[in-house]
């Protein structure tokens, strides 16, 4: 008996030591090749080797347990590979001892048809999971967190597809990012749904992206809940065609802990949704409430007061429809530049607004595009059917020029038929 136990132990020890086992295609319809990585001292080498030697269709599976990695795990050029764990809180990949000189991301991928699912990535020095230049990218049930909680030295992004196409991000839970939890940048065709983003500087950020559907997400306790931005100087110039609907964006009142210089550092804490310099955005059917600065703000890039020199960049938000949302509460403690500069202005100019309004608009328009002093139909800002909301057009253009702004609270000037944007379609995604 004792002998049997010893041999069993020995077998287990060998299995543990070898760590990396191959389960050649189980006798089911699935013929996938699964390479299992066990926690332990050799996990770094085994996982990286498996990722380097992976063949199309392989699954790199991290077993249940805690893994400690000292370098970025990277996958390049091999399409159709999946990385998966045994569950968001069952498989934890920790990068707190990551060494300089080998990258800062937890997982870095440059390949097509990549899926990452069912695991947690912790304490990376830089971004949690970055995918660059891939087509057909899925993040499913991935958690990214920094165990010390929100901190300016935490990594910038949680899940981070950039310059990608056909992206699905669902069921993820991202916390503590010093920039954006769920971030989609310079990409085409993204579906971001049923994720939870909290305690980040920005909960969800869609940046310079063409075609994004953002729905049924929860963004709460971030400094800013949902950001739809276009920034200058980037390869993909203009973000457009973004629909955000059925999201819960509430109480995003966390202090802004981003390092200055990053664009998100300018986001006032207490911001629900910001649409900045992006075109063709439809924001509808969302619950947006208790965001202490403003529930919804729409602005040009000029509010950042950053210089830029990019002739192909358009700094104005155009073709924006905000309709049929449920917006309430908040506006009671405007923060950041809004609190310092705009709140006193509002008090002086529109004393009838007891609080900071639900929807603020910087009022900066591209005068070259106006016809008879008005924006053409396709460039209009439409704000309708959002219940009893308060509103201010800040006329910041004049203020930035050192002139007296003409602040207006007249929502009627933004009446009209909202533009209905088409749904984003990705093959194989229901």
């Amino acid at each position, binding site marked *: 008996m004792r002998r049997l136990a010893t041999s069993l132990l020995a077998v287990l020890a060998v299995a543990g030591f070898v760590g990396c086992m191959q389960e050649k295609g189980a006798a089911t319809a699935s013929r996938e090749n699964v390479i299992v990585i066990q926690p332990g001292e050799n996990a770094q080498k085994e996982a990286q080797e498996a990722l380097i030697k992976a063949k199309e269709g392989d699954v790199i599976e991290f077993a249940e347990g805690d893994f400690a990695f000292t370098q970025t795990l*990277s996958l390049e050029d091999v399409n159709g590979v999946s990385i998966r764990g045994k569950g968001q809180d069952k498989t934890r990949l920790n990068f707190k001892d990551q060494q300089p000189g080998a990258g800062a991301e937890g997982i870095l991928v440059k390949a097509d048809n990549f899926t990452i699912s069912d695991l947690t990535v912790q304490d990376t020095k830089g971004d949690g999971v970055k995918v660059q230049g891939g087509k057909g990218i899925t993040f499913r049930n991935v958690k990214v967190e920094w165990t010390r909680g929100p901190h300016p030295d935490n990594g910038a992004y949680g899940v981070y597809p950039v310059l990608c196409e056909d992206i699905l991000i669902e069921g993820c839970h991202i916390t503590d990012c010093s920039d954006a939890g769920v971030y989609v940048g310079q990409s085409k065709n993204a579906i971001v749904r049923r994720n939870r983003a909290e305690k980040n500087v920005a909960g969800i950020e869609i940046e310079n992206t063409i075609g994004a559907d953002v729905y049924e997400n929860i963004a709460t306790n971030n400094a800013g809940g949902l950001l739809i931005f276009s920034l200058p100087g980037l390869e993909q110039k203009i973000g457009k065609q973004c629909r955000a609907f059925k999201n819960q964006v509430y109480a995003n009142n966390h202090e802004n802990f981003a390092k200055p210089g*990053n664009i998100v550092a300018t986001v006032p804490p207490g911001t629900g949704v910001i649409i900045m310099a992006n075109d063709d955005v439809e924001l509808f059917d969302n619950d947006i409430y208790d965001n202490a600065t403003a529930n919804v703000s729409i602005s040009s890039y000029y509010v950042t007061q950053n210089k830029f020199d990019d002739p192909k960049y358009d700094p104005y938000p155009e073709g924006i429809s905000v309709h049929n949302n449920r917006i309430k509460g908040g506006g009671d403690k405007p923060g950041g530049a809004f609190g310092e500069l705009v709140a006193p202005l509002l008090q002086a100019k529109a004393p009838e607004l007891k609080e900071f309004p639900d929807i603020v608009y910087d009022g900066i328009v591209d005068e070259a595009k106006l016809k008879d002093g008005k924006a053409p139909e396709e460039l209009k800002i439409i704000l309708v059917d959002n219940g009893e909301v308060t509103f201010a057009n800040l006329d910041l253009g004049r203020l930035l020029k050192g002139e007296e702004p003409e602040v207006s609270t007249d929502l009627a000037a933004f009446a009209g038929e909202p533009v209905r944007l088409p749904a984003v379609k990705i093959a194989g995604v229901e």
Partner: protein
Amino acid sequence: MPRRTQAAREAWLLGLLFFSLLAAAGCGRSTSGFDPASDAEPPESLTALGIFVGDGRSQQPAPGVIPYDINTPLFSDYATKYRFVKLPAGGKAQYNADRALDFPVGTIIAKTFAYPHDMRDPTQGERLMETRILLHRADGWVGLPYVWNDEQTEARLEVVGAVKPVKWIHTDGNERAIDYLIPNANQCKGCHKAERDTMLPIGPKARHMNRDLVYHDRDQPYTENQLTHWTRIGALEGAPADPAAAPRMAVWNDPSSGSLNDRARAWLEINCAHCHNPGGNARNSGLNLMASTERPFEFGVFKPPVAAGRGSGGLRYDIVPGKPDESVLVFRIGSDHPEVMMPEIGRRLVHQEGLALIREWVASLEAPAATSGAQ
């Protein structure tokens, strides 16, 4: 250029001896038969690539292997580098004024990283760390890291790279020690995919190679311009007869080779532009540090950082002319923190001399006239 010291010569002889013993015993791996142009698995041992005489510890090139050097090199934690090209039989590289020389399929490029025991005294010998190989196969370039063993008897293919502690006496006489990082095969791609996801050599471009080198392939060492040499021996086609007609990059630390601007831009190109160019890995940042980039905004002047996280250092622009302390570029070159440092892979130490050069250059810059947006 490999400088054969007494110690290295002895080591080389020992290596030869060891190698012949191995071969005689029949347990050595075949040193011939690997065809870089084929899709055969790359050999486990560096010796099989036939770049060096013997086991390669002397870094003495095998006959027909061409040593080369470049004007301004990438900083790699103060490691010394030896560079070689082995062309396939009868193969020639094609000259190109802007891009890397066009090497034929079957070419092997080797770069060995070493630490002299005492940087003030090369006769004390050195320790070889790794030899990075670029193989030009039929379907493109492949990067392979070969790691030298502690006994310096061989270098073995380690696709996952390695971490090796190393110490040396620095130029200032102080002992320094680091855990030297040997990149893995994917990290090779990180730098070498300089043009839209295509692996390419970085160093062997005409502008980097347009310089003199001392050659040892005759009885007496002699000096010759590299482009001229390559053309003369039939390794290069299409280069201008007079190297003065080819582009030439400044030597970052040699003021006689170019102005402060030329030298700083050369340093930035070789250290940063393999990623920071419109086709490179960091193209999402919109920052273009090729020395040929003319628009100040594109090379960072009043350009806000993108996706920098704590790498912004709390600063608003990549370059604020005249103000190195307010420039993200300077902050990141001067950092050794994983998320802040640039380049983000391939070094652990700050290149203090390079940092000083870039600071001086930023301090010398004047604000361009055309900058829109709020002032």
